[in-house]
């Protein structure tokens, strides 16, 4: 089965796609740090960040709807963590409610922080989508390696990329096999079946891991991860990096 949930738009051609993965990694990281460090009330800076990332997304030719859908994935996590902030932050009260025995009040400061957390998370995820959708995963791994990320971590990421597709295949086959023999049953029974499937998947993955390790040993693997160096910076990387850095610094100077 073919899956394309990781590398769907990596084959497009644009200025952003052609950049060295290291340039993209560093600028993405710089962007996220800048977003996170920007003070809460500085809305103009956030507007500027949004324009910046939106411009890059347009240059990258990624379909806007795809980017939007992808970016929504982050909200459940952010909301789960941040939803209680308005209730706990002290300050001017925006509204107060009686829920049974408790009196709960929402403050303006709290709401501001909630909005801020959501905006920061969204801007960060946009930049990560830009990074991951315009860079082939293999290039990203090379970039990480050359930026000095430990080889073991790069190796783990590369295994994840290689085997996530096979695991998904396995889950789909198991689901199909279950559905072909599914004659209803109680909810508890269904839950138990899912539990069994997860267990089976774990054991199969564990056994596959052992076979892969044997295959690695057979080709001379001795726990030292080695690799060739294959990337090189181009002039456009320097221009892009410099322009992006200037934009971030300028935003800090002008709007603060």
């Amino acid at each position: 089965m073919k899956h394309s949930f990781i590398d769907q738009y990596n084959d497009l051609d644009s200025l952003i796609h052609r950049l060295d993965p290291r340039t993209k990694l560093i600028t993405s990281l710089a962007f996220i740090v800048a977003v996170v460090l920007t003070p809460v009330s500085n809305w103009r800076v956030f507007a500027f960040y949004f324009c910046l990332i939106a411009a890059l997304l347009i240059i990258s030719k990624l379909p806007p709807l795809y980017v939007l859908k992808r970016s929504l994935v982050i909200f459940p996590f952010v909301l789960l963590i941040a939803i209680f902030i308005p209730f706990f932050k002290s300050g001017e009260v925006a509204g107060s409610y009686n829920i049974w025995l408790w009196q709960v009040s929402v403050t303006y400061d709290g709401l501001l922080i909630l909005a801020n957390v959501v905006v920061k998370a969204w801007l960060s995820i946009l930049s990560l989508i830009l990074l991951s959708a315009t860079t082939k995963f293999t290039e990203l791994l090379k970039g990480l390696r050359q930026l000095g990320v430990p080889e073991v971590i790069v190796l783990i990421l590369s295994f994840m990329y290689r085997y996530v597709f096979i695991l998904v295949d396995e889950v789909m086959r198991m689901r199909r096999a279950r559905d072909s023999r599914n004659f209803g049953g109680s909810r508890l029974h269904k839950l138990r079946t899912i539990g069994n499937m997860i267990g089976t998947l774990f054991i199969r993955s564990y056994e596959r891991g052992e076979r892969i390790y044997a295959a690695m040993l057979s080709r001379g693997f001795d726990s030292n991860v080695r690799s060739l160096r294959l990337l090189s910076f181009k002039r456009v990387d320097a221009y892009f990096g410099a322009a992006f850095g200037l934009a971030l610094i300028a935003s800090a100077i002008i709007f603060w």
Partner: protein
Amino acid sequence: MDKVVDIENLSFSYPDGHQGLKDINLVVYFGENVALIGPNGAGKSTLLLHLNGILHGNSMVRICGLPVEEKNLKEIRRKVGLVFQDPEDQLFSPTVFDDVAFGPINMGYSELEVKQRVAQALKWVGMDGYEQRSPHHLSVGERKRIAIATVLSLNPQLLVLDEPTSNLDPRSKWSLIELLRQLPMTKVIAAHDLELVSALCQRTIILDEARIVAESTTTNILNDIPLLRTHGLAPQEKAIQAPG
């Protein structure tokens, strides 16, 4: 003639006590193609894993005269190219290039030599130009070929294959057999596919319940239907009759 594989009285038990191999004696000479057949669970894969020191039994295995022990492992694994049955296990890198280059990089060859070896290995299996593809975008037949290329890049003296034709359609199967025929090195092939065995191997060994139970030329073995039947390698008489 030179002995590529030399095994004397090898027995092996898995940690759970299950006996994997009993008193195995096996010699493979330079340039031979030897088939290893037998029912599921007979110990074929277990025996193959002894040939490059992934598993260790109670006695010494010699490869090209070199005992398989800790200090020789690197040299042994360069000489013995072991191709696993499932290419999904053999191909664990994000691109074809990374996988074929894995062995040569581990052996510490220079960047230039690694690239040359990868190009040569891919050419041998007829897959040049696939360097930057991802294994999960290839067909089963293509994956099998790449899996073989991953060991050819080390230029091994002994090619050990576990069920090379499993899961292949007839066309891919015969083109893979043709490919293997053209590779000059000594081969040990574990297989259920008797067509593959008769097409490639001069000598055949039957393994059943962890022991070698028969050893002869492939023609002798494959024509001895009662023998094959005893070990579950040919259908029982009743089953052969065509329906209707």
